[in-house]
């Protein structure tokens, strides 16, 4: 506590700005850290924590609290307000026009994935992230991580100040200390120095790193990312001798073969991949020349659910399937391999031949022959090096140059980059254990939590004298380090990033650092020379630009274009051969495998991010939890049902985790997603889900063999947003295969017979002005769920917490419905985003007794929050069930909410944390409890568009007004605009044959319609499937 007191004093002296922005008063400041939580407990009103159910206990607690507070207010109830300082908005930031937002181009790195974004800044605070159209990896789209990174910036649980052994230190203290360290190590050439860093893609960082390595040649640098592309990189290296990063053009391919690759989902580069893939599947864009996709994967992914043919196959067998396939292709003389390889491949293929699904294989081979030069093979990062090596060879021979490019890794000269992450972390621990290291600097990451279980990081750290952790959040590693330094968020620091395609983009701050933080580059600069701020470091890297050029770079956010690809390198089979010869012959014994996948929390770095915690998983629709995903067959074999807790054991490691039964998951296989169950994370993420890192070992890093599964008998409640997986033969999601579509272009409309619906009265015609409408193209949509997050960020939608999701009260305005098709492990899924349909004859409107939901002149179904009394009649009468009710004040019940200063009687209620308040979109009402809410077509954006157009006295241009979901969608599946404008995209979409309305038979006259999905299956396989289905 004392330290916190002097923190406040320090702050007052040193950082008036800091105080100004983020503290209401000194008392508040001193309470800010730990004691803040006590304060909260005191004012819990019975249910302050998201995971606290409103139980009998809380009720009693509440009654007590109320009485107590009533008493308290009785004696201390005076109208003298606490001392607060106000700051007039006199000095506004540059170019800032009142209530006009500015967009700043910056870019975000996640692992080796770099996405250029535009940060929307309102009165100097970023309130929304959009994609940067001029950035090669974004092209205007964003993913869930980019969207929700905003919440991380404002996360009140961030590391706020430098601390040494838990005591407050200023940034200057740390700089001074680190300088001292670097000078004393200069003598020993940095013998005792060691750096462990997250994947770095910043040219400036590597510039500094070079200088660092010159200055301290003996210093050791390691890099660790639990989610990485090592196998792909090294696989291709093994046959080319070059560190190549592939770049696949899914839009140009006619046949895509994905081997355990979720390239549309959580793999790096998924934004670009999704856009390209969607273009290749668009019946209009391709004139019905759709690409066809075969997917072999253990657990159902969004990629698998978009496949025309999906083979559920255990992750460890995928490579054997490939050998069989290659063997078949060799027989067919469409590929040629060096005889040495052929021998090995045939040897391995033979052992698996009998197991493979022969129809699937035959069809695949047939299609490969048919689409030669337009075939694209892609394998997931979990697949071993030899798979990637073989795929490189196949791609070379079976597809033209336009389908894939290979670019050298920008930083291949750094050994810690090319070294595989597994080796890196192993060596790191070993190096520490030698005891030579006295100063260890950890840039980001959380090795203690994320390292494989056989790498004893905690033990290794004991050998080190000075341990420094530069981190965004306090986490397990920081608790084992003595210096904890706040790491700057990308939205508050200067920097640059290089994407895998070699293009560089700028990282520029949109807000002054909220806390006393350092960026990685600044840390490096401290080591190599004296402190210099991020901007100077950055400018030094890009010296070649004149100030004028520099300004335009900052404006566009792009520093350099993708580097040219390399082609036609002669390959050597040596590496691949070595790998192949190490592969054991396939044995037919029934072992249980465990596969590890990334999650919506990535590797765990987003675990304190409420938006991502509550975002339903694309397939399981789980929120706030990970689970041991198992197939239906496995479930029945062990007589398990969703929620049963099991003990998973592999060799010496075991964890207890509940299972979740998922159709489409292969049997005898378990899928565990990383990133959950953190012990130290923050008020939102702590102990949510289950930590599965203990199951990972360096020797089985992506898959674990021979797992055993024992039912414990405990049951665990899962908060899934969609209990019912079947569509009950109701035509909501409509799709047909290409041939049927060509024969019956109107099939979607014909699926429901809607007799000519007459109205009893003369209905209102919406025939002039802008009439807003939306089309969601199911052929393009992959179900990635970024629309949900984008909407949440744009419209101040609160998170409700696991307990409330269990109660069925999630608040997402646009949800992605998932329906399963088929049985057991061969099942697949379809995804359908559903938001308010904005019916012209809206059922919700006429039942509202207070006219709180009425129709706008422009055809939108509007909610009037301040009029709503909350009868919930509208929600009952909504056939699409898109209306969301504030059963509680979810902003107040957020665990990060803080109790207000006592200004008047009701102010022992809570309010969102001040920093969280900074994120709110000022153009959208923050709803209180007891009111209904729903998708508004982003009415605030419509109004902005209208006022802009009005100012220049013109009509709104098509595409000028974009809804948040539409803008974020990487698949460009959502079109929005004026349905009266013949030239608008939305009009053209609604004009398509495959356009249809759901629940049309209710005469809703909905403004949101769907374009039916078109698949392109192999005729033979499709026929077989049908005949199987029919008899």
């Amino acid at each position: 506590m004392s330290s916190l007191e002097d923190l406040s004093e320090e702050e007052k002296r040193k950082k008036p700005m800091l105080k100004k922005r983020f503290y209401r008063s000194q008392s508040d400041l001193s309470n800010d850290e730990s004691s803040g939580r006590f304060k909260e407990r005191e004012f819990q009103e019975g249910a302050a924590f998201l995971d606290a159910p409103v139980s009998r206990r809380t009720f009693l607690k509440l009654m007590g609290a109320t009485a107590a507070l009533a008493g308290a207010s009785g004696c201390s109830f005076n109208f003298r307000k606490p001392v607060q300082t106000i700051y007039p908005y006199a000095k506004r930031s540059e170019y800032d026009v009142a209530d006009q937002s500015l967009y700043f181009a910056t870019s975000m790195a996640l692992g080796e994935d770099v996405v250029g974004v535009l940060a929307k800044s309102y009165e100097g605070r970023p309130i929304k992230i959009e994609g940067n159209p001029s950035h090669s990896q974004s092209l205007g789209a964003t993913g869930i991580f980019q969207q929700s990174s905003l919440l991380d910036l404002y996360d009140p649980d961030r590391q706020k100040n430098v601390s040494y052994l838990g005591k407050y230190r200023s940034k200057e203290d740390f700089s001074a200390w680190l300088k001292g360290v670097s000078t004393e190590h200069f003598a020993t050439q940095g013998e005792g120095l060691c750096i462990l860093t997250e994947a770095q893609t910043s040219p400036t960082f590597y510039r500094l790193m070079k200088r660092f390595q010159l200055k301290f040649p003996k210093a050791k640098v390691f890099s660790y990312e639990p989610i990485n592309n090592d196998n792909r990189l090294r696989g291709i290296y093994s046959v080319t001798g070059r560190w190549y990063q592939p770049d696949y053009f899914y839009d140009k391919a006619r046949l895509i073969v994905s081997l355990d690759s979720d390239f549309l989902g959580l793999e790096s580069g998924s934004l670009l991949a999704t856009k390209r893939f969607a273009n290749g599947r668009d019946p209009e864009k391709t004139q019905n020349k759709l690409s066809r996709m075969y997917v072999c994967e253990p657990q159902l992914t969004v990629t698998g659910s978009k496949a025309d043919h999906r083979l559920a196959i255990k992750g460890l067998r995928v490579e054997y399937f490939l050998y069989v396939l290659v063997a078949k292709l060799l027989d067919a003389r469409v590929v040629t391999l060096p005889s040495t390889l052929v021998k090995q491949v045939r040897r391995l293929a033979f052992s698996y031949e009998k197991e493979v699904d022969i129809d699937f294989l035959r069809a695949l081979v047939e299609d490969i022959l048919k689409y030669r030069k337009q075939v694209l093979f892609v394998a997931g990062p979990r697949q071993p090096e030899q798979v990637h090596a073989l795929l490189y060879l196949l791609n070379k021979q079976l597809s033209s140059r336009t389908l894939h490019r290979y670019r050298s890794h920008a930083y291949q000269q750094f050994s810690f980059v090319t070294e595989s992450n597994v080796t890196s972390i192993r060596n790191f621990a070993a190096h520490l254990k030698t005891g030579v290291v006295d100063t260890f600097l950890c840039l980001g990451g959380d090795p203690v939590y994320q390292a494989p279980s056989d790498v004893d990081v905690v033990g290794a750290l004991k050998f080190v004298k000075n341990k420094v952790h530069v981190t965004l959040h306090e986490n397990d590693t920081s608790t084992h380090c003595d210096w904890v330094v706040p790491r700057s968020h990308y939205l508050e620091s200067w920097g640059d990033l290089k994407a895998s395609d070699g293009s560089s983009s700028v990282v520029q701050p949109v807000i002054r650092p909220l806390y006393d933080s350092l960026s990685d580059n600044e840390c490096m600069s401290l080591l190599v020379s004296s402190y210099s701020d991020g901007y100077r470091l950055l400018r030094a890297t890009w010296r070649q630009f004149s100030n004028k050029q520099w300004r335009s770079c900052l404006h566009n956010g792009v520093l350099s274009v993708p580097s040219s690809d390399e082609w036609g390198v002669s390959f050597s089979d040596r590496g691949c051969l070595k790998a192949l010869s190490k592969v054991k012959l396939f044995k037919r014994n029934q072992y249980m495998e465990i596969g590890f996948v990334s999650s919506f929390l990535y590797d765990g770095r987003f675990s304190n991010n409420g938006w991502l915690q509550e975002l339903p998983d694309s397939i399981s629709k789980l929120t706030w939890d990970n689970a041991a995903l198992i197939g239906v067959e496995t479930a029945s074999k062990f007589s398990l049902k969703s929620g049963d807790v099991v003990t998973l054991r592999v060799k010496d490691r075991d964890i207890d985790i509940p299972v979740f039964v998922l159709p489409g998951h292969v049997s005898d296989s378990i899928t565990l997603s990383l990133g959950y169950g953190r012990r130290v994370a923050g008020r939102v993420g702590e102990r949510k889900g289950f930590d599965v890192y203990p199951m990972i070992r360096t020797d089985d890093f992506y898959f674990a063999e021979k797992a055993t599964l024992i039912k414990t008998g405990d049951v665990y409640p899962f908060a899934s947003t969609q209990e019912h997986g079947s569509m009950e033969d109701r035509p909501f999601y409509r799709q047909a295969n290409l041939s049927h579509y060509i024969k019956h272009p109107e099939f979607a409309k014909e699926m429901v017979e809607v007799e000519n619906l007459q109205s009893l009265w003369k209905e209102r015609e919406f025939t002039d002005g802008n009439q807003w409408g939306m089309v969601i193209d199911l052929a393009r949509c992959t179900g990635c769920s970024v629309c949900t997050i984008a909407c949440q960020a744009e419209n101040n939608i609160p998170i409700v917490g696991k307990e409330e999701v269990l109660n069925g009260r999630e608040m997402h305005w646009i949800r992605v419905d998932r329906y399963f098709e088929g049985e057991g492990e061969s099942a697949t899924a379809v995804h359908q985003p559903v938001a308010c349909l904005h019916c012209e004859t809206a059922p919700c409107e006429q039942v509202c007794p207070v006219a709180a939901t009425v129709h706008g002149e422009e055809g939108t179904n509007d909610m009037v929050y301040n009029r709503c009394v909350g009868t919930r009649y509208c929600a009952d009468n909504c056939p699409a069930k898109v209306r969301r009710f504030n059963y509680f004040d979810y902003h107040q019940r957020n665990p990060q909410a803080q109790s207000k200063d006592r200004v008047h009687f009701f102010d022992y209620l809570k309010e969102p944390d001040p920093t969280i308040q900074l994120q709110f979109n000022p153009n959208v009402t923050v709803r209180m409890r007891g009111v209904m809410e729903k998708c508004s077509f982003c009415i605030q954006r419509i109004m902005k568009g209208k006022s802009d157009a009005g100012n220049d006295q013109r009509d709104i241009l098509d595409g000028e007004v974009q809804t948040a979901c539409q803008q974020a969608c990487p698949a460009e599946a959502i079109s929005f605009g004026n349905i009266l404008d013949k030239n608008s995209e939305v009009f053209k979409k609604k004009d398509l044959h495959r356009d249809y309305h759901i629940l049309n038979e209710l005469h809703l006259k909905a403004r949101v319609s769907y374009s039916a999905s078109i698949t392109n299956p192999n005729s033979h396989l499709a026929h077989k499937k049908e005949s199987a289905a029919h008899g």
Partner: protein
Amino acid sequence: MGDTSVNYDLQRHPLVEGGPDLKTVSDVISQPVEVKPPTWWLISIVGSISILTLLLSMVGYLVWEGVGVWGLNNPVGWGFAIVNFVFWVGIGHAGTLISAILFLFRQKWRTSINRFAEAMTIFAVICAGLFPGIHIGRVWVAYYLFPIPNSMWLWPNFKSPLLWDVFAVSTYFTVSLLFWFVGLVPDLAMLRDRSTTKIRKVLYGIFALGWRGANRHWQHYERSYLLLAALATPLVLSVHSIVSFDFAVSQLPGWHTTIFPPYFVAGAIFSGFAMVVTLMVIARELFGLKHIMTLHHLECMNKIILATGMMVGYAYAMEFFMAWYSGNEYEAFAFVNRAFGPYYWAYWIMVSCNVLSPQFFWFKKLRRSIPFMFVISIFVNIGMWFERFVITVTSLHRDFMPSSWGYYKPTFVDVCTFIGSFGLFFTLFLLFLKFLPMIAVFEIKGVMPQANPHAHDGEGHVKN
């Protein structure tokens, strides 16, 4: 005076058995009001007030925390609150029917129970009115529902069934209250005249409005009473029809049904009469009013319970037929889901209580057995509560889009609030029993032989 009873039997069962004189009738009926409350009364008032406190604390908790303390969720936006509302309104209707319709049909046997039934109506409507009030998300702006313009001259939406409901229920309450009070005035006057203490004289005097029983008053009074009865009859039908519109006018499968208005009215009479029987059986025991609330009266009511029970059963059957006959898949599913879905138990409780149990009343013996009819009346009340539950919840929890199907589980707050509403009802009812004549004295006298001025052949007279 046993001999007198034979002379004038109105070719039916005697409405007042034993033929007491006017004074005795006054004494007997006024007695509970004038003597010290018996122990059982004190015990039960303490009990019901403590249950009422439960209600109040639950409502307080609800208003403080938010509607989330109930089990509602996204598909199921209406739960216990609306179920209880319809349940209580339904019970209320019997009172009006007994006093109004039977009055119009000159069913003289009603006189022994109409005061009783009307009281029940008013208290039931009070309980009913509570629920729509507290079930809204923002109780503090409930007045938006009343025809009060905002500063932009925006009025409520008169196209909304819920607003019709506001008007229907408040009108119903007002009219019932007036009807009841008008009926009370002469009896209050009697109590005023009988009262021995100053305080009683003043209090009863105030509400008696200075009634003197003058014939000119009786003339207007009778006419006014008749008119009120004539108004209450269509009102009671309209009110439950409008309550049913809350469901019928929406387009939810299982709600969107034209049969609802008559079906709801029948159900209301059904449950209401059951409730009257329950209360009467208790009251006549406790107050020894067996000779005024005769077995004959109870039997009449059981017959009505049987008849309305059959109507309700018919409605259940017809709903299913229509669901099948319409060929609408959503409609069909809604009803299959009712009988065999996750809430099948609620449906079958409803059917067995409402359709099967009244069938016993075909037998005169059972119809006239006090304990038996008591049990059946309880069953009917349970069944009718579940009918509303089935209609409200099972229709909502699985409607059009399977993706948003859910399941509704009531929380302890839901349950305690419902229990608490009985506390409110019985507290009011016990106060009524203690402080007001539970039988319309002047009407009883009106149907006694002494009231018949044209039977003046001497013997008919009873000398006071």
